[in-house]
Structure formats: structure tokens, C-alpha cells
């Protein structure tokens, strides 16, 4: 019974064999006992990985933190739909990692090609072998492009983009919309949940409509939604679309894309073909490939990574933790959640590496703002509290979306973006 364990551990002090969470503390404490500094290696410097790196250094400067990231700059997916809508240039969403370096995070710009979970080393493309006491994987999502016939060919030809990882594809999608004639059709195909950023496709449709209304008002947007309804902020979007873009956006549920032909510019669902001028196809995602390398992409379908709710350690592989979109969870897959998971994981590691019990009751707050125009936005928020008896994060009452978007929340969205970038990167 969990209650008995809690009472047993209450006065066990630092010498306990296992924590409430089952993490093998003595082995981590051994790393410190050897006289060296504990080594935490983090792979992926997005919102989850970068935040974890920062907070480890902030809360215990005796922990050596190595952060491996292929890109030499941070690319923000949040607000990238503003680029698609012509409200921002992409360069405004590209940030430096210097703030993390200033905190003593060792940045390694390289790719991971192998993970040895017995020897506890990470091998990189340039030939380095980096040892770890604890490994944190925060790669975000990879896209299962082979689930959509013709996708890979279309992407290779530069005709079909997902633009679901901010950067060159975002700019390419914007260029495709700029080149589209008035009266053209823009088709967005979005996958069923769980997916990274469930509100994103609807925000993208809104901001494309905002652009079309000014620049090419006879154009149309078709949102082919694999899910059964608008799965995020439905009332808010419907209200905004009716008020600001009447007749421009058609949302078609139960429409999973099975094929895309970039030569005829046609997307096929199971039932129907749709022809368009710009096709934005977002395939289903799964945890990034490095999770498979470490043996932690291990939910039933082999798509996401189950983790311990207190430490984010994988039950499959000791000393390997997973953060962010890659995690198998009932939490939203969002930047805000990944940032908070990074803090919880960092906090747990600091306690464990110092021989103390980690907080058994972490609390996650998830907020996300979605813009519906260049001056209106609406939030959704929920608090989830970890229950050690249920071994699950429980949604707290009151969580949900605002019924309408407005100008005040547009200001809050801009403020949120500035603050989360600063919080994550400096």
C-alpha cells in the first residue's frame, strides 16, 4: 500500500534504498561518492531539454550538464503560425543558446548516432563518446511519413511541407501561400490526437484566413481533420471564423489523409479526393528516434515513451529520462508543458543526486494561447497534479478554454512568448 510506504519513508532519511518513486538512489549517490561531479547529459535543446539544462545548473552548480543539439540556434514552434500568417518574420523566432552557456551548460552541436545504456555513453556523429550518470531525452516528435502514400516524394520535391517543426519549412509554407493566386485553395491536413500542439492546425487556418482576407479574399481554406471534431478550443475558433472570416474556412472532420500526390496537388482521404493549390500535410508523430535507440519508446504501440511521473525516468531503461512531446501522457503536448516537465525533472534529479527524496507530488500547469487574427487570441489552461497512489497526473477542476478570443489575450500571448523564451534560454 502506498500509504504504508509513505509512512515508512517519512523518517528514513538519506539512506533509504529506494525512493517512493522506485528510483535507485544509491547508484546515483555512488557517482557523487566517487568524488567526481554528477554528469547529466541532455539530448534535444527545445523547450523541455533547454529548460531542464538551465534549472539543473541553477539549482545545483555541482552537476555537470551537457546539452546535445543538432541546431546551433533555438527555433520556436510557438508563434510560427504568425510567420505563416505574415505577422512575423521567421528570424524573430530564432534565439541564441548563449544564455545557457553563461550558466555553465556545455552545448554540443552534434547528432546522436548511438546510445549504450549499459556503459552509459552517448555516441555522436562527429565521433565523441559522452558518458552520463543520468540521460535526459527531449527530441520532440518525428513524423510517420510512410503512413501517407506519396508524402516522402512530395516533401523531397519541396511541394508538400508539414511546417510542424519551425524553421525552413515554415518559411517555405509562407512562400507557397504568397505565391497562391486569389481564389486558390489552401488545404491543411491534420492528424488525430495525441499530437504535438493539438490547437496548431486551427490557429494556422485562422491566420492564413487573416492573410487571405487582406491579400486574396476569394481564396478558401479546407481543414481536413482526422479527428472527430475541432479538438481544441472549438467554440473559440468557430466564433472567430464566423465573425472574422465568414465562408472562408471549411472544417471537415473524420478525414484522415491516406495519400498525397504532389504532381496533381491532390490529397486523398479514405473517402474523397481534394485538390488544392497549397497542400500542408501534417503526418502523425511519434517520439524522436533517439528514444528508440535507448529502448524507451515503449508504450503499447511503440510510439511514445512512458515515464515515471515524479522523475520522468523510463521504467524500461534505468537512468534514462524523457521530456516533452515524446512522453506518453494525458498531458497536452506543448511548449509550456515541456518547459514545466523540464523543471520537475531537474528538481527531482537535484534531490536524488544529493541523496534526498524527490517531491512525490509534482504539479504541472499547462497553458497555451492561440491567435485567431493579428490582434485577437484565446487561452486554454489546466493544472494537473500527480497522485502517487494512482501513479497518474489528475486534471484539476476548472481547466479549459476561453469561449472567445480577444485583444487582451493577444497581449498576454505576446507576453507569454517573451517570458517563456527568457525562462527557457537564460
Amino acid at each position, binding site marked *: 500500500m502506498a500509504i504504508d510506504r509513505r509512512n515508512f519513508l517519512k523518517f528514513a532519511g538519506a539512506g533509504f534504498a529506494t525512493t517512493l518513486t522506485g528510483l535507485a538512489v544509491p547508484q546515483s549517490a555512488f557517482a557523487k561518492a566517487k568524488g567526481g561531479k554528477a554528469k547529466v547529459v541532455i539530448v534535444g535543446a527545445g523547450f523541455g531539454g533547454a529548460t531542464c539544462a538551465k534549472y539543473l545548473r541553477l539549482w545545483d552548480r555541482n552537476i555537470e550538464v551537457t546539452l546535445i543539439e543538432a541546431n546551433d540556434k533555438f527555433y520556436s514552434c510557438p508563434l510560427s503560425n504568425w510567420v505563416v500568417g505574415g505577422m512575423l518574420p521567421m528570424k524573430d523566432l530564432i534565439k541564441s543558446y548563449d544564455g545557457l552557456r553563461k550558466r555553465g551548460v556545455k552545448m554540443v552541436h552534434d547528432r546522436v548516432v548511438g546510445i549504450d545504456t549499459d556503459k552509459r555513453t552517448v555516441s555522436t556523429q562527429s565521433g565523441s563518446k559522452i558518458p552520463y550518470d543520468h540521460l535526459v531525452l527531449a527530441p520532440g516528435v518525428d513524423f510517420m511519413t510512410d503512413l501517407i502514400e506519396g508524402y516522402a516524394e512530395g516533401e523531397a520535391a519541396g511541394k508538400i511541407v508539414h511546417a510542424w517543426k519551425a524553421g525552413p519549412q515554415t518559411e517555405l509554407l509562407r512562400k507557397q501561400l504568397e505565391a497562391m493566386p486569389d481564389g486558390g485553395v489552401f488545404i491543411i491536413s491534420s492528424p488525430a490526437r495525441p499530437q504535438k500542439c493539438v490547437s496548431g492546425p486551427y490557429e494556422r487556418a485562422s491566420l492564413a484566413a487573416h492573410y487571405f482576407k487582406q491579400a486574396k479574399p476569394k481564396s478558401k481554406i479546407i481543414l481536413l481533420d482526422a479527428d472527430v471534431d475541432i479538438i481544441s478550443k472549438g467554440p473559440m475558433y468557430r466564433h472567430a471564423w464566423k465573425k472574422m472570416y465568414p465562408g472562408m474556412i471549411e472544417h471537415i472532420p473524420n478525414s484522415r489523409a491516406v495519400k498525397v500526390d504532389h504532381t496533381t496537388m491532390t490529397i486523398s482521404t479514405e473517402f474523397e479526393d481534394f485538390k488544392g493549390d497549397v497542400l500542408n500535410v501534417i503526418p502523425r508523430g511519434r517520439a524522436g528516434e533517439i528514444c528508440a535507440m535507448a529502448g524507451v519508446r515503449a508504450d503499447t504501440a511503440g510510439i511514445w515513451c512512458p515515464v515515471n511521473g515524479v522523475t520522468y525516468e523510463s521504467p524500461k531503461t534505468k537512468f534514462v529520462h524523457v521530456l516533452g512531446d515524446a512522453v506518453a501522457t494525458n498531458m497536452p503536448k506543448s511548449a509550456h508543458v515541456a518547459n514545466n516537465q523540464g523543471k520537475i525533472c531537474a528538481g527531482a534529479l537535484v534531490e536524488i543526486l544529493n541523496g*534526498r527524496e524527490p517531491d512525490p507530488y509534482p504539479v504541472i500547469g499547462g497553458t497555451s494561447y492561440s491567435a485567431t487574427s493579428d490582434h485577437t487570441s484565446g487561452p486554454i489552461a489546466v*493544472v494537473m497534479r500527480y497522485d502517487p497512489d494512482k501513479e497518474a497526473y489528475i486534471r484539476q477542476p476548472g481547466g479549459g478554454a476561453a469561449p472567445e478570443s480577444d485583444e487582451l489575450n493577444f497581449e498576454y500571448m505576446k507576453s507569454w512568448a517573451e*517570458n517563456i523564451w527568457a525562462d527557457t534560454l537564460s
Partner: protein
Amino acid sequence: MKVKHTLALAVSAVLMCSGPVSAAGATKAKPAKTCLIAGWENPASVCAAHTKVISATCFNCHGSNGKSNSAIPSLAGQEKAYFVTAMKDFRDGKREGITVMQKYALGYTDDEYEAMAEFFAKVK
């Protein structure tokens, strides 16, 4: 919910008994060996870790260390009583305008409001 509020009072009592006593001639106070989170007793280090992390999860909206230079207000240096009252007002729906704060206030306990208020009051 009733149980939590009762325990919140118990926490206040524990903290009052265990804090430093300023009256002249008073005996030295013993530091709290345990503390309460969500109704359960824990070693003091756990509560310190809990407060540290839940306060940090406010930063992604309210700014690093609660210092914001934009529309979302700063929390750094906010007077403790004001913070606690604000959280209770948000929880009870007494604040106007559509913000996310009622949803957040509903997710934390009274003793967590107190702990976070103490944290932010100390930030310079």
C-alpha cells in the same frame, strides 16, 4: 476539499509553532521535521523542493524569477498577503476579465498559496 482546508489550518499551526520566536526570553524554536503537502506528511526537504519547483512553474508566464517586462504582471517582490489574497480571489471568481488564473488558482491548495507567496516576496 473540506479536508484540505482543515489541513491547511493545521499546516499554519505547524509553521507557527516551528518558526523562530521573537518574544524576549522565549526558548529556541526547533525546525520542522515534517511538513504537509496535499494532506500528507513529508520530510522538510521535500516541501522545500516542492515549493521551489511549483514557484518556478509560474515563470514561463510571469517571467524568470517572476520578473516580467510585458503584459503579464511580475510577481517578484510582491507582498505576501497580497499574493495570497489575489490567488483566493482568482479561485473564487472575484477578478474580472478572461485570464487563465482562475484555472490555476483552482489547482493549488491554500498552503501552496502561502508557500509561493513567501517565495515571491523574497525575490529582489
